């Protein structure tokens, strides 16, 4: 495609924006069907217990109750062993929520309470109570059966890794040798992000209906087809017997990937529609993340080159939550972000079970907590080496062509498609006034001290799945675009429609997206790893390009011109270089009433060994009151390299989201439990406080470098999660720069600062 673009790069309005601003957008919770039944869940009062006996007869006899479910009659859905306060004991399905709730009170349960553990460090001790009797609380690796890799051979010419072997550790080289060659070794431990979580506006839940042998599930999702497949697998149903309906999701940020099997199991029994909407308190029981405990040892040459690195990193997952995020520990180490000079790397990492609440992925998916470890210790190193923190990053960040050592197969594990970090650093230095304002902490005086902190990140367009798009073009130059990608607020429906409009040369308004359920759409990747624009975008491009080619072939025959002499603009076909249209779509189509283009991308689409990655440099300017411990963010400048911003306002919005969640992690977010009972004390937005409109002033910079990245037809790489990764370390580094105090645990609350200052 030529560089003159009409829709790509413009902040056109959200494709489904009208529905969202008029209240007509139907989220799953807005589904109200006649004679719908409601579910209430009876939850565990104990942090660890076995159910000795459960008597549901009273609830079953209660007027209005249709079904009572527990591990006795639904052993696949419920367990007899409970692992956190709020764990699911039983459920009542009844004519309304109140009846269901009252009937829950009539279920008699005899529990056998057991010892429990609520703290990660405690859980790691050999004599700690076990969360699961049959396995230790600590598990090395990033999932059941997923091991780490030792990279053993390199291509002598390209320098890229060509061989790896399964191992208990991840990395390459020999760290002992590396540290012996280092001039300066910087080490720190007990770096920790608090167990914290994303909250979304829309609470979790679903509506399920089984009628005429087909199951319909209205829910939130990050992948309509993924959800359908998971339900099919769990209930052993053919996929085509299930329709997942999810036109809108009220925020997800990685977390809304749960499948709600209780209402589905109930409707399969009752053949009646069953609805479950979590209360805010129930919502808070699922979806924690970040809890981490890390140690990092970095070996430098005097000139700042980072040559050896050893990392130990543990992540809390509650009672067997999502353990995959720990895999991303490699991302900000010498395996990727700092691959430039690093010759020796050893990462030991795994997960820790506790009796806190179920962990699920969240915005950044394992990377923010490892960024916090890495970029905190890098900052310490800058002061010890006497090298400006910006300069130390410049010396060590990866360049295009540097080898990657991720847990992926080596053939798709080669190099990053482009590097925009230099420009990010330049722009951030300028906007933050770094060179003028940065002073050593030793030079700061007075009760209120200001400081600057910065760091880097790399993220995005991770593991791709199969993606498909179908573009159906009509003779009136309008197109119907079938695509199963989820729009969770990140703008995928808009951006994908922009691609169709641009490639076909028809107006954005004339692209109609069909995306609301699995019945009407082809398979799309789930939106994770910030890969929608890149992975699905390529399939969308191919579908539109195929339709365009067919249209131009038809026009070519009609006009007696070669297809390459023709172009489409504003829904009309032109001979290149002429001002007047040569024919309309209708004329080209002749008797045809529809042209169909199909595009697909496959999971192995990266065998060319080129990975696109969003990159960023963040600059924080804080003031710290050393008398009260109050920390104020004076200015926050996130600079994100995204290749090309297909819709700049949407990209800006993605950066706002990431930084906003990151600032919450830095300042507020923490799961607090009653140590005696394991009961959550941060169970709603009054005690798990969100930042408000009064708290955030973010000045994002979007870095686009036209022509630098060729991995996507429009030069987009990724944009989404990258903006959250660097926030905690940037703030922590600014606090150090202001006070000389290194805070190593988030959130950075006044009490931690005052304790470190020796004032309380």
């Amino acid at each position, binding site marked *: 495609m030529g560089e003159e673009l009409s829709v790509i790069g413009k*902040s056109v*309005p*959200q494709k489904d*924006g*009208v*529905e*969202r*601003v*008029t*209240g*007509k*957008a*139907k*989220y799953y*919770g*807005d589904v*109200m069907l006649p004679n719908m039944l409601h579910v209430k869940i009876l939850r565990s009062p104990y942090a660890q217990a076995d159910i000795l006996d459960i008597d549901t007869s009273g609830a079953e006899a209660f007027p209005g109750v249709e079904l009572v479910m527990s591990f006795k009659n639904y052993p696949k859905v419920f367990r007899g062993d409970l692992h956190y306060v709020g764990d699911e004991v039983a459920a009542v399905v009844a004519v309304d929520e*109140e009846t269901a709730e009252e009937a829950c009170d009539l279920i008699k349960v005899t529990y056998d309470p057991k010892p429990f553990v609520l703290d990660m460090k405690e859980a790691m001790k050999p004599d700690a109570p076990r969360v699961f009797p049959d396995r230790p609380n600590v598990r090395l690796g990033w999932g059941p059966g997923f091991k780490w890799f030792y990279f053993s051979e390199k291509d002598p010419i390209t320098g890229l890794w060509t061989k790896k072997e399964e191992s208990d550790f991840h990395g390459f080289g020999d760290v002992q040798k590396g540290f012996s060659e280092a001039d300066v070794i910087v080490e720190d431990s007990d770096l920790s992000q608090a167990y914290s979580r*994303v*909250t*979304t*506006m*829309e*609470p979790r839940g679903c509506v399920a209906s089984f009628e005429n042998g087909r199951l319909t599930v209205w829910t939130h999702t990050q992948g309509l087809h993924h959800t359908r497949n998971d339900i099919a697998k769990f209930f052993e149903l053919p996929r085509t017997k299930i329709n997942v309906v999810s036109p*809108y*999701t*009220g*925020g*997800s*940020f990685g977390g809304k990937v749960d499948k709600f099997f209780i209402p589905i199991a109930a409707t399969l029994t009752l053949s009646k529609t069953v609805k479950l909407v979590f*209360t*805010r308190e129930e919502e808070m029981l699922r979806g924690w993340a970040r809890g981490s405990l890390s140690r990092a040892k970095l070996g430098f040459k005097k000139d700042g080159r980072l040559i050896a690195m050893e990392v130990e990193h543990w992540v809390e997952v509650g009672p067997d939550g999502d353990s995959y995020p720990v895999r991303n520990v490699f991302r900000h180490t010498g395996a990727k972000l700092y691959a430039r000079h690093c010759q020796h790397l050893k990462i030991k990492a795994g997960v820790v079970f506790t009796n806190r609440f179920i962990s699920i992925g969240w915005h950044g998916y394992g990377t923010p907590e490892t960024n916090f470890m890495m970029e905190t210790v890098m900052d310490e190193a800058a002061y010890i080496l006497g090298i400006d923190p910006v300069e130390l990053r410049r010396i060590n960040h990866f360049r295009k062509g540097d080898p990657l050592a991720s847990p992926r197969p080596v053939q798709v594990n080669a190099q990053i498609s482009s590097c925009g970090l230099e420009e990010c650093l330049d722009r951030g230095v300028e906007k933050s006034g770094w060179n003028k304002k940065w002073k050593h902490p030793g030079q700061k005086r007075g009760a209120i001290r200001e400081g600057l902190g910065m760091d880097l990140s790399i993220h995005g367009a991770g593991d791709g799945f199969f993606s498909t798009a179908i573009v159906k073009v009509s003779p009136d130059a309008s197109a119907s675009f079938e695509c199963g990608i989820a729009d*969770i*607020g*990140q*703008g995928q429906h808009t951006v994908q429609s922009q691609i169709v409009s641009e490639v076909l040369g028809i107006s954005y308004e004339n692209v109609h997206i069909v995306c609301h359920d699995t019945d009407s759409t082809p398979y799309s990747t789930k939106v994770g790893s910030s890969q929608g624009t890149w992975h699905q975008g390529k399939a969308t491009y191919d579908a539109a390009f195929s339709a365009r080619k067919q249209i131009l072939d038809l026009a070519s025959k009609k006009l007696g011109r070669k297809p390459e002499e023709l172009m489409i603009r504003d829904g009309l076909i032109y001979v290149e270089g002429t001002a007047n249209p040569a024919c309309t779509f209708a004329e080209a189509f002749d008797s045809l009433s529809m042209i169909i283009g199909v595009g697909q991308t496959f999971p192995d689409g990266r065998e060319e060994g080129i990975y696109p990655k969003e990159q960023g440099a963040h600059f924080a300017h804080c003031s710290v009151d050393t008398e009260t411990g109050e920390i104020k963010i004076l200015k926050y400048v996130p600079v994100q390299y995204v290749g090309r911003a297909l819709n700049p*306002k*949407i990209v*800006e*919005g993605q950066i*706002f*989201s990431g*930084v*906003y*969640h990151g600032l919450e992690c830095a300042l507020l977010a923490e799961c607090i439990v009653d140590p005696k009972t394991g009961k959550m004390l941060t169970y*709603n*937005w*009054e005690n798990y406080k*969100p*930042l*408000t*409109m*009064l708290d*955030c002033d*973010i000045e994002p910079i979007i870095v686009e470098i036209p022509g630098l990245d060729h991995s996507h037809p429009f030069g987009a790489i990724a944009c989404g999660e990258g903006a959250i990764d660097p926030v905690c370390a940037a703030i922590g580094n600014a606090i150090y720069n202001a006070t000389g105090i290194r805070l190593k645990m988030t959130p950075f609350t006044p009490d931690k600062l005052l304790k470190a200052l020796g004032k309380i």
Partner: protein
Amino acid sequence: MEKVRNVETDEKRFIVNGKNYKIKIEAHWTLAYVLRDKLGLTGTKIACDNGACGACTVLIDGEPILSCMTLAVECENRSILTIEGLSDGARLHSIQEAWLEEHGTQCGFCAPGMIMTTKALLDRIPGPSKEEIKEALSGNICRCGNYDHIVASVLSAAKKMRGEQHG
């Protein structure tokens, strides 16, 4: 504890988006529940159900209130405006237009409440400063963190509405 449910009141009259409704309600039903589950006006969202987020904001006699914290019985004979009543048929209200143009929504779940709070603000202060906007909307949470775009949307809406009034 004494149960309050099934205490059905007499038929109550509500004026929602200019239309009269007479329905039997139970004493403990919230306005949000009646709007959504009984009148099918699901544009009003319930996110926290305890008055902490503003997603359920509707206007009662022009004042923004949290419909999840307001009992329906209190609203008898009062004029209630929800997001569904803001646009005039297919024609969007200036605030909604501004929201679209400035990308005031991401996931959209906070938008109905945000927009209704904005309506009350701009009816009261036609030309608010950024600070006044932030103050007025600080009780409305947007978990997408889209606040900068929301402030821009309100500023743009204010301009549009002033233009309409003067023109």
